[in-house]
């Protein structure tokens, strides 16, 4: 009996091992089928980790990049002007910022639609009236809304990294992706990879070898008000940070409340543990 079971167990282990080795050797054909071709580089962000906060100057620069570059094609439907106060702007500045936009509103008492200056309660108006218009103006693919893009794009981390991510609190896959993607243009495609007409090769693109989006940024394109370097790399970091804020505006509050909750639970746990020891002290168990 023991021998049979030992034999079976050994067989199971050998079979398992063989399969694992086979799995490790699998893969690698000529035409790529898994994207992105290159994983995004991990950047250092002011908002990572348990005490991370948004860098307001960076968010303001990111807003400028979004407004002057990205917003030509990409909407930001979920973000209201009023929430820009989070970026360190005063109420008056937000009002002035909103007023620069024309909002399509109506109907008025005469039944007419009309345009009016934006108010803080309005959301960023989209660059195209509808998805069909956006698609037809951009080679057939509508540019995605950017409100949640920093949470909606994540490159698979794979084992064992996703386990480590629990302990390092890595949740910046989105901004890392945005940065990698925006800076990922202008490279030479590897041999054997065909780039369809009207698309641009980008090894960091998550769903193919190339994208309809042309390289969006060049050095010096956006004039910063502070002395941050006016380079594509800096632009992309700033806009990625801004989009992270757009996707998760309450992140700072979350982490701050979280710290207090964790401390409370810890102290409460210690007290209850000591109580438990006392209660069970005369019971062998």
């Amino acid at each position, binding site marked *: 009996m023991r021998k049979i079971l030992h034999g079976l167990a050994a067989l199971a282990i050998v079979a398992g091992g063989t399969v694992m080795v086979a*799995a490790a050797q*699998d893969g690698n054909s000529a035409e790529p089928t898994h994207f992105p071709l290159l994983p995004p580089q991990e950047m250092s962000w002011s908002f990572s980790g*348990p005490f991370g906060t948004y860098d307001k100057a960076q968010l303001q620069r990111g807003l400028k990049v979004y407004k002057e570059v990205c917003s030509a094609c990409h909407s930001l439907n979920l973000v209201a002007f009023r929430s820009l106060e989070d970026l360190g702007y005063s109420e008056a500045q937000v009002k002035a910022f909103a007023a620069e936009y024309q909002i399509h509103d109506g109907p008025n008492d005469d039944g007419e639609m009309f345009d009016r200056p934006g108010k803080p309660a309005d959301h960023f108006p989209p660059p195209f009236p509808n998805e069909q218009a956006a698609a037809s103006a951009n080679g057939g693919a509508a540019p995605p809304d950017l409100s949640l893009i920093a*949470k909606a794009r994540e490159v698979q981390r794979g084992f064992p990294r996703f386990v480590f991510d629990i302990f390092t609190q890595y949740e910046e896959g*989105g901004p890392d992706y945005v940065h990698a993607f925006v800076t990922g243009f202008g490279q030479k495609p590897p041999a054997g990879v065909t780039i369809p007409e009207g698309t641009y090769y980008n090894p960091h693109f998550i769903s193919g070898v190339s994208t309809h989006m042309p390289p969006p940024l060049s050095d010096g394109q956006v004039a910063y008000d502070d002395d941050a370097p006016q380079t594509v790399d800096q632009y992309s970091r700033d806009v990625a940070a801004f989009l992270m804020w757009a996707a998760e505006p309450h992140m700072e*509050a979350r982490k701050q409340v*979280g*710290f207090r909750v964790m401390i409370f*639970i*810890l102290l409460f746990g210690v007290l209850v543990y000591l109580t438990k020891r006392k209660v069970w002290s005369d019971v062998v168990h």
Partner: protein
Amino acid sequence: MSGMQHSTYTPKSGIGRWVDARMPLPRLMYDSFVAYPVPRNLNYAYTFGGILSLMLVLQILTGVVLAMHYAANSDLAFNSVEGIMRDVNNGWLLRYMHSTGASFFFIAVYIHMFRGLYYGSYKAPRELLWILGCIIYLLMMATAFMGYVLPWGQMSFWGATVITGFFSAIPLVGDWIQQLLIGGFAVGNPTLNRFFSLHYLLPFMIAGVVVLHIWALHVAGQTNPTGIEVKSKTDTVPFSPHATVKDGFAMIVFLFIFAYFIFYIPNFLGHADNFVEANPLKTPSEIVPEWYFLPFYAILRAITFNIGPINSKLGGVLVMFGSIVLLFIVPWLDTSKIRSAVYRPWYKLFFWIFIADVVMLGWVGAKPPEGIYPMLALLGAIWYYAHFLIILPVLGLIETPRRMPNSITEAVLEKNGGSAHPAGAAAAPQTKG
């Protein structure tokens, strides 16, 4: 051993006696959660029942408030969830508690179930207790699946499409069942409406079955790591304060980990594609269910070939549902007279191999069905079935168990160095409560 058979409750006040003579609810509570005797040797694996009750309450409370702000309409749902995240006071906290809470509910239920399998808690006279637990688990799966559809993201939509598609594999009535489920020919607004309604209903059905589950538990009494039934009063301690404080401490540790996920990595257990609004015209590159369904998803996809008149789709669905049906009949598949794996050396080994198999299936379930993975899924599924249908029945007949102590008290004293403790220590619990 049931506390209900000989109640020790004596109301102290006049009002207490008045109520007790008319509707003895305080007596029921006292007998169930204060005087109720529990084995003295329960370890922390036995605290997950309490943790699960807490999670059910948390899910219902957060869910009720979320439902006040949520719009179950396919045009509004996605943005209403984002409204909760952005504009509702502490809405982000409620939503992250609820979404992460679903995952932690499943973490707790899996530990609870594996504890039952390890210590043989399902054996006579606790078969019904086990089956009620399996029903709760099924209801939880349905609730979680429908809840995941509500944010109306890409993974919600396509997950709903794939999973309701299983039902169309059933011969003759399959298409009819699928159309009934989704309220049309494709997942859409009617699907969202009925899923929301059912997602609100099922947790209360779970709560009802939980009452039956606890009732059945309190009739048969708890098992314990030795698997030996309670024989004398020295084997037990009163529920309060002993079990309450221990369960309470376990809950706090569990909440600590839960809070870590809520506040620091709230989207770790979710899927990025669900932050893209549902689009029926655009299929995501891969459709994966939530992590807690992955082993079953792997078993579903393990069948890639036709078996006689059964095509691969129906085969996969049958094998997947069968893997859950097996859980219901575990009490009759396990032929061993011994409950606990502690005294079953071979069962203990196969238990851990089974855990490894389920973890591997979960890993395969998250991978695209290509290369080596379908083969791994098939091997994993075969082992899953073999564990229940071959290993459990056969092991019980041929395994030589370890020597067992005569009672819980004896086991406890042996573990703590036997003679080192005077007999008085063993008798101590009797003086309490």
